[in-house]
């Protein structure tokens, strides 16, 4: 695969937190995610997944190394530049959905567009409603998200992540707080959008079954990427159990 098809590329990314003794939590990470890929990131708690995800999502800066989004080096960008790039290129799905509770489903979905343009346009509502319909939430558009089930809320979060049509969505344990059926359904929706829209997904998960269904699995341990291969579910389960 050539460089031009890479959405996101990390080269020798390190992250340290200052203190009496500086603590390095990421030790020279190299990651490349291509257009249309569906990648799982697995690793035990404390392995540095959250830190890595923050750097991938331009919410944090590496101590050293480079982060490129769509071939553009983000290392030197200021906060406004990072925010702009984050808004247009990356969607987020969090474990606890992190929707704005008093807002309706469609408001939550079109808020990123509203923040981007600054003004409301009727097309925003149309697009939000279209995404909600595709994700099985037709009829729930004007309902406050606090009155939706956990699975429905997570689907609203997926619609919000996709509303700006980003080439990459970072999903931080999106099924971790759902029952098995809802988790499966949420995963299926992400997979479907990945195929239909060509949106790349990086999915942090503790579920070996879901990781196994991804195109590629990245395994993080103690701040190092130790495995970038497709493993069997049994191997993966064993690895995750051993790492706990």
């Amino acid at each position, binding site marked *: 695969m050539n460089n031009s098809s890479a959405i996101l590329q990390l080269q020798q990314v390190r992250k340290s937190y200052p203190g009496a003794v500086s603590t390095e939590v990421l030790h020279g990470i190299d990651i490349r995610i291509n257009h249309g890929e569906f990648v799982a990131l697995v690793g035990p708690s404390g392995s540095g997944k959250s830190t890595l995800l923050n750097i991938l999502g331009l919410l944090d800066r590496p101590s050293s190394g480079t982060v490129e989004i769509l071939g553009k080096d983000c290392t030197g960008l200021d906060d406004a530049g990072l*925010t702009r790039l*984050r*808004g247009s290129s990356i969607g987020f799905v969090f474990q606890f959905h*992190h929707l704005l509770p008093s*807002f309706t489903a469609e408001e939550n979905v079109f*808020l990123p567009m*509203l923040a981007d343009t*600054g003004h409301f346009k009727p097309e925003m509502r149309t697009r939000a409603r279209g995404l909600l319909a595709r994700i099985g939430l037709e009829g729930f558009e004007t309902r406050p998200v606090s009155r939706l089930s956990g699975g429905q809320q997570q689907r609203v979060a997926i619609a919000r992540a996709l509303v*700006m049509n980003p080439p990459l969505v970072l999903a931080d344990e999106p099924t971790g707080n759902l029952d098995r059926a809802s988790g499966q359904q949420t995963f299926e929706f992400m997979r479907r959008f990945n195929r239909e829209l060509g949106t790349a997904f990086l999915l942090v998960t503790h579920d070996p079954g879901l990781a196994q269904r991804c195109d590629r699995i990245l395994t993080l341990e103690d701040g190092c990427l130790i495995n970038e291969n497709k493993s069997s579910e049994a191997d993966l389960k064993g690895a995750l159990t051993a790492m706990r």
Partner: protein
Amino acid sequence: MRFELHMALRFLKEGRMQTALILAGISTGVGVIIFISALIGGLQESIIDRTLGTQAHVVLRPPDDEARPQLDRQREDVLEHIQRPAQRLRSILNWPRLLTELRRRPGVTAASPTVAGSAFALRGTANRSVALRGVDPESYSGILDLRTRLTEGTFDLTGTHIVVGVELAKELGLSVGDTLRLTAPEDRSEVFTISGLFDVGNKDLNLRWVFVSLREGQTLMNLSGGVSTVEVKVRDIFSAEKEAQEIHAATGLKADSWMTLNSELLTGLRGQSSSSVMIQFFVIVAVMLGIASVLVVSVIQKGRQIGILRAFGTRREQVLRIFLLQGGLLGVVGSLGGIMLGTFLALFFQSMVSNQDGTPLFPVALTAALYARSVLVALITGLVGAWLPARRAANMDPAVAIRYE
């Protein structure tokens, strides 16, 4: 609707109870400001109107006569004692040109020539000492509009017509159409016909003031073609002293403003204004702290939501504006409530006690300017109160804020 406004309104709606309480606080604060301003403003207007309603704001007179001793100042054995000369009634030189120049000044609304001096009013065997005022009726109406103060007759000063106060008329048994002899110094005397009686609301002035035409005044005071004073009204009464000093500097004339002639009144007015400003200042500080505390709590409560907004591309300055807008909205909406409350309180207070003539004992000055100033002050207070919480929200690290519990 703009994104920031949309978010600000939603955040305020989310914290309904907090929003309602702080709005009640702002409304009370602004209501107090309006009530106090209206009351003190009304009282000041009333005092100023009663005191200055019959006065010029600036009175111009010729400079004093100065003695010019013929002494050899080099000699040390001569004791120097210069006796101040008695001031005789003199005319302002070239007063028509002075009038033209005064009327060109932007701060001056009216200027009128007068001849002022003492005289005796005689009626049969009775006589009274009076203050003779020879005026030009047209221009003098800009200083004191006697037409609106007449109780009887007309303000006619043509020929030997005269207008006197109601108290003098009572003392001398005069009514409109009667005659009255005025005797000025140096035995200059003339018989006048009463054309009108006035009441300026001041018993002493009603007894002492006698208005004749400028020409008759000049004749009686032996000031042929001259005027002893030029009276001036200014646009802003509190700039009268400044105007007086400027006129003095430009003309060399003695220029006394009402502020120097009524310095105690001025001190009283300034004391009232200062106490009003102090009360308003502390109310504003209290309102500002209220807004700030509510928004600080809001920023803490909405930490995660702010993080989410930042994650999907909301810029720092947008977050800043969301919270500044909340402060501004609270200020403006609160001030509208305050206007209603303050107006109600002021009108209620005004209606409680009246003078004998039916006018309110505590007049209130509720003006559009007061309302506009209150809204503006509340808006600025809201923005200032929101500034620190807004900066705190804008500077939140989104990665930390998202994990905020």
